[in-house]
């Protein structure tokens, strides 16, 4: 009896892994790294995580979870409320829609597709923030650098996410 309860609790905890990992990555993007020049061009870590889970475990990170992470990010970062959540939701939807395309594709293709999705996300967020914020559009160069950083960082973050995926989720099956 106790065994089954523990087993069930373990299963529930595992189901929260994608949400937890995405949340931690979102917070990680905000912690100071003390590396010169990096604070201005923080990569979009939350986007990477949402993209990853949308491909590999679409069942475990729903729209509601993505929305709440996006809203939390906006409230913490001081960016226009809703802009971060919108981008994450759109990214997730695009990947869900192209599930067949992503199926069993090599990493290079996944990375390339991320570069495309992230480009759309960054551009859309830039437009959203520019339209909503009272200060108007920020210089596009900053955003472009942040985008390049995101694409460059994806293999590293993707590797960590894949580790988390294999260790914590594959065991439960």
């Amino acid at each position: 009896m106790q065994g089954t309860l523990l087993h069930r609790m373990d299963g529930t905890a595992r189901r929260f892994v994608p949400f937890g990992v995405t949340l931690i990555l979102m917070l990680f993007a905000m912690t100071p790294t003390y590396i010169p020049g990096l604070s201005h061009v923080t990569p979009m870590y939350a986007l990477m995580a949402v993209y990853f889970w949308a491909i590999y475990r679409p069942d475990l990170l729903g729209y509601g979870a993505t929305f709440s992470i996006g809203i939390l990010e906006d409230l913490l970062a001081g960016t226009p409320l809703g802009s971060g959540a919108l981008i994450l939701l759109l990214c997730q939807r695009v990947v869900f829609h192209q599930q067949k395309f992503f199926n069993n594709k090599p990493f290079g293709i996944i990375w390339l597709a991320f570069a495309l999705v992230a480009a759309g996300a960054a551009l859309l967020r830039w437009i959203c923030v520019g339209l909503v914020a009272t200060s108007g559009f920020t210089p596009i160069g900053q955003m472009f650098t942040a985008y390049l950083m995101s694409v460059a960082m994806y293999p590293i973050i993707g590797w960590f996410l894949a580790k988390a995926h294999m260790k914590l989720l594959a065991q439960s099956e």
Partner: protein
Amino acid sequence: MRLPTGQISRFGTLKSLLQRFAYLSLIGLTGALMLIGKADTVLVERASDAVTDAVTPVLRVMSEPAAVVADFVNNLRELAAIREENAELRESNSRLLQWQSLAQKLESENKSLRGLSALVPEPNATFVTARVVADTGGAFAQSILITAGEQSGVHKGQVVLTGEGLVGRVMQAGLYSARVLLITDINSRIPVLVGEAGNRAILAGDNSLRPRLLFLSNKSAAAHGDKIVTSGDAEAFPPGIPIGQVSRVEEGGVEVEPFVVRDKIQHVRVADYGLSGILAQSPPALKAEAPKTEKVEK
């Protein structure tokens, strides 16, 4: 056999319809939130304060390893340069001793002159020191989160400094945390004095590393290396706080290199100079306070 299959497919269709409906609702909600954020900033600020207060302890723990690594690297760097630094310090110490004697002389002179002119002394500032736990940079907003809030006496509009100079000002203050708008943020506008001539200008951030000077009274007056300090206009900042120096003068504008290196900030001081400040209160609060000041004047 057919009935259950039909039921399953019907259930599947219903589920996908529900999912689509939920998705569209959430997309609509993000749009609505963007509009609410534009219309009712106070509500969003309050929500942001509450969330920041709750998440700051987590960010504090998460920022610890990076701080330890940064300290270690700094220690190594300092250790390598310890000899040169020692020689430099000796030299600067002897120079400073000369300045100290000059300052003492000036202080006594100042004292006697103040006595003559019956000058009202400036109020002393009170300071709160806080740790930086989050650098919510990115390309869209330049702000940091610190571990002191209303409970420690940090209020909206207060000035934030490090030993090098001005960092920014408190933009939002929760109970246990506060958000500091950096001078590089696109929303930052600071009245400044340029160079020894003291030309007035506005230092405006644009989310890049170097803010620019706007409304410089005499463009040719700004030269490379000119020091920028706060002017104290509009009572948002006290006069004379060092900000940076002119790093580039060109047709398009004048760029300023801040003294404070953002990537190195670990602790900041929040100073309360007792300034009313144009940003300390929202317009209704100012209106409400207007009769009170009249009363005092009478």
